[in-house]
């Protein structure tokens, strides 16, 4: 191959390569401009030869590009730009007139020092490679990776939630067995309380009788001899008989009250856990509410005043233990909705073949963006460790199993109202007459 | 009569490179020092006529040597030979009494030209 042939070949390559090639001298005057540059810039080599790069293309980032080219002149080394950091050097139209997807041709540029025999850099040659297609693929790849990363993250979250759910289940099993224990204890306490109660009744009667007798003795006191009278009044004084007389009745009354309280708690505990009678029953929802309130009274006493507006609806076929659970969750949620103290209103009523219960609070309310999510399992706005976000989802499922509806109305700053709607009949108890019979019983 | 030359550089290779750049037929006796402190000791013995001095060295660097020499009357010709070829370095050593600054790697023609220019080599 001779030199002339080589030059022709080199010229051909520079001209025809799908690569922008141009060169500048140390004064940034253009000394080479190939066909690719011509096509995309609309300016021909002839019109540009010798003109200054920056006056011809004022849109170029002059300060930066000058430094860059100067450093190639000074150091005699390559320099680069990549579309990832700098989308393009020249704003050229991309080669996707139909398919589109980018705003301009993305370019990788290389700055090459062209040295003379002494090693001094004479020109800097700059090549522009169109990377649009590669870049698009890479961008899509990056997007795909982001999506799959996102999915992996979600899976990770789900795993954590599953773990939580497992713990929760464990927790509720524990609760159930605590409930059973409580019911067992309640059952055991029931008997001694029974005879304490009846003994107390006898004691009260006996004391009343004794007092009657005492009254007669007292009325006959004046008829006794002087000495005996004196002895009696001394003893009366010593034991403060007048006070004992008054206090006896009070003591017995207080004991009866206290015992009554214990009996209610025991009964509620048994009621609430329903270990003795599970499954579908005909129940009085107002009694369910009362039992639940008794169980959670400690929880809510300092946070809320409870107001009952009962409409005395008919009895309902349901699983009372579960309905109690729903009520408890709603009441506890309500009591947690107050920054300080508030009011919880419990209403009942009848609507066609349904009975409804409303649990209303005048707490913080629920923002509308949360309203669709509160029934989701694990949705909670409460601090970690306080709420698991399972309460409402459990409620929702229980009510749905009862073929009822659980709905909510809420206004931020005003409060929330949860409404349970339950069908009166299910036919789950076999004999529907039984239910009807129950309904005809006067309340 | 032979000229007494002291080459000061911490790098043995640099000292070798400098020796090779000196005119081959020049009548000289060469001593070497590998840091500034050593260079000052040899200088104080009084025989050194021409010193090639590197700038970056342990113990006392080239600037430190120049300071001492200046304080003691500068009784020899100092040519700084350094890889730090920025104009500021050159200006500084010339202000401190060096007669010339030669960048590393030392090029023999350049060195001889400097020597001739100052009448050290005839």
């Amino acid at each position: 191959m001779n030199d002339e042939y080589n030059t022709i070949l080199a010229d051909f390559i520079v001209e025809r390569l799908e690569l922008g090639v141009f060169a500048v001298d140390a004064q940034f005057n253009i000394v080479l401009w190939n066909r690719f540059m011509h096509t995309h810039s609309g300016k021909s080599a002839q019109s540009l030869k010798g003109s200054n790069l920056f006056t011809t293309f004022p849109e170029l980032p002059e300060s930066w590009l000058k430094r860059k080219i100067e450093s190639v002149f000074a150091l005699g080394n390559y320099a680069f730009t990549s579309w990832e950091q700098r989308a393009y050097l020249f704003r050229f139209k991309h080669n996707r007139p139909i398919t589109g997807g980018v705003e301009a041709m993305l370019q990788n540029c290389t700055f090459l020092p062209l040295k003379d025999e002494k090693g001094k850099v004479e020109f800097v040659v700059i090549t522009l490679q169109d990377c649009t297609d590669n870049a698009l693929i890479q961008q899509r790849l990056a997007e795909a990776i982001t999506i799959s990363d996102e999915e992996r993250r979600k899976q990770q979250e789900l795993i954590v939630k599953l773990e939580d759910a497992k713990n929760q289940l464990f927790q509720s099993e524990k609760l159930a067995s605590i409930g059973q224990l409580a019911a067992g204890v309640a059952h055991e306490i029931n008997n001694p309380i029974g005879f304490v109660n009846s003994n107390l009744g006898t004691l009260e009667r006996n004391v009343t009788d004794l007092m009657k007798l005492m009254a007669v003795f007292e009325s006959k006191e004046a008829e006794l001899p002087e000495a005996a009278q004196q002895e009696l009044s001394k003893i009366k004084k010593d034991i403060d008989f007048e006070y004992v007389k008054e206090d006896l009745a009070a003591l017995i009354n207080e004991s009866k009250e206290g015992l009554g309280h214990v009996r209610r708690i025991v009964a509620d505990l048994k009621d609430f856990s329903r270990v003795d009678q599970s499954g579908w029953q005909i129940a009085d929802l107002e009694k369910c509410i009362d039992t639940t309130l008794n169980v959670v009274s400690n929880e809510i006493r300092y946070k809320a005043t409870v107001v009952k507006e009962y409409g005395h609806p008919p009895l309902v076929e349901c699983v009372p233990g579960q309905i109690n659970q729903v009520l408890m969750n709603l009441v506890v949620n309500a009591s947690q909705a107050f920054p300080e103290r508030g009011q919880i209103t419990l209403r009942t009523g009848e609507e066609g073949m349904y009975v409804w219960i409303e649990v209303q609070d005048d707490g913080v309310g629920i923002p509308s963006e949360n309203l669709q999510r509160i029934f989701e399992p694990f949705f909670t706005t409460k601090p970690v460790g306080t709420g698991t976000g399972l309460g409402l989802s459990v409620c929702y499922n229980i009510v749905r199993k009862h073929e009822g509806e659980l709905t909510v109305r809420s206004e931020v700053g005003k409060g929330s109202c949860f409404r349970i709607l339950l069908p009166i009949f299910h036919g789950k108890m076999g004999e529907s007459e039984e239910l009807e019979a129950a309904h005809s019983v006067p309340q | 009569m032979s000229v007494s030359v002291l080459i000061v550089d911490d790098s043995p290779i640099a000292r070798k490179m400098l020796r090779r750049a000196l005119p081959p037929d020049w009548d000289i006796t060469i001593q070497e020092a590998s840091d500034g402190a050593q260079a000052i000791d040899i200088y104080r013995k009084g025989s050194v006529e021409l010193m090639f001095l590197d700038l970056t060295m342990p113990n006392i660097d080239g600037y430190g040597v120049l300071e001492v020499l200046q304080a003691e009357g500068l009784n020899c010709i100092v040519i700084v030979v350094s890889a730090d070829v920025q104009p500021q370095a050159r200006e500084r050593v010339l202000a401190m009494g060096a007669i010339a600054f030669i960048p590393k790697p030392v090029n023999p023609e350049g060195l001889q030209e400097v020597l001739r220019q100052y009448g050290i080599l005839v």
Partner: protein
Amino acid sequence: MINGLNEDQSAALQELANIGMGQAGNSLALIWKEFVHLSIPRIAMVDASRLPDLILSFVGDTAVSASRQAFHGGFRGEVLVVVTARDRNGLAQLMGYEGQLDAAEREEVLLDIVNILGGACVGGIAQQVSAEIGFSAPSLIGEDLDPLDVINPEQLAIDTALSLEVCFQVENRSLTAHLVILLPNNEVGALADLLDQFLCTLEA
């Protein structure tokens, strides 16, 4: 003596690096129109597992940004540039960037700086031993990294490397950049041959 290079070879490398750096510093001063101070190159043979510690010892315990570039030809290796996050904007100004930098520009600064420093230093050394060296396009290692995370020894393709570190300081702007040239141990032989050739020219 550096493991893999004999005493003469390491002394020669030290001096050639010195000269190469001096020229690099001069070129940079020319481009940046600022006085550039270069530290004496520190050369060491290091185990791959010790590289993170080495980087930490150069820059200290501060968040850093880093980029890399490969070179090939007479000898092969990679250069790393490590700068502290604080110095990044100052470097950008030196390189002609104007105003606040966006994320892409910050990355570009890091790529530019490794290209310029690496080119100047490796080029300087290569010229001393008359080797032809070419460079690949630089790439980013990361921003705001712990110095120990710049190099992950587990991903390295080598067991030991020759490390040559230089610290650049631009005095008027109190900017510092660390350049680390890493040569895989199986390339040290090629460099040793080049150094021997150079030493021969001194003995002849």
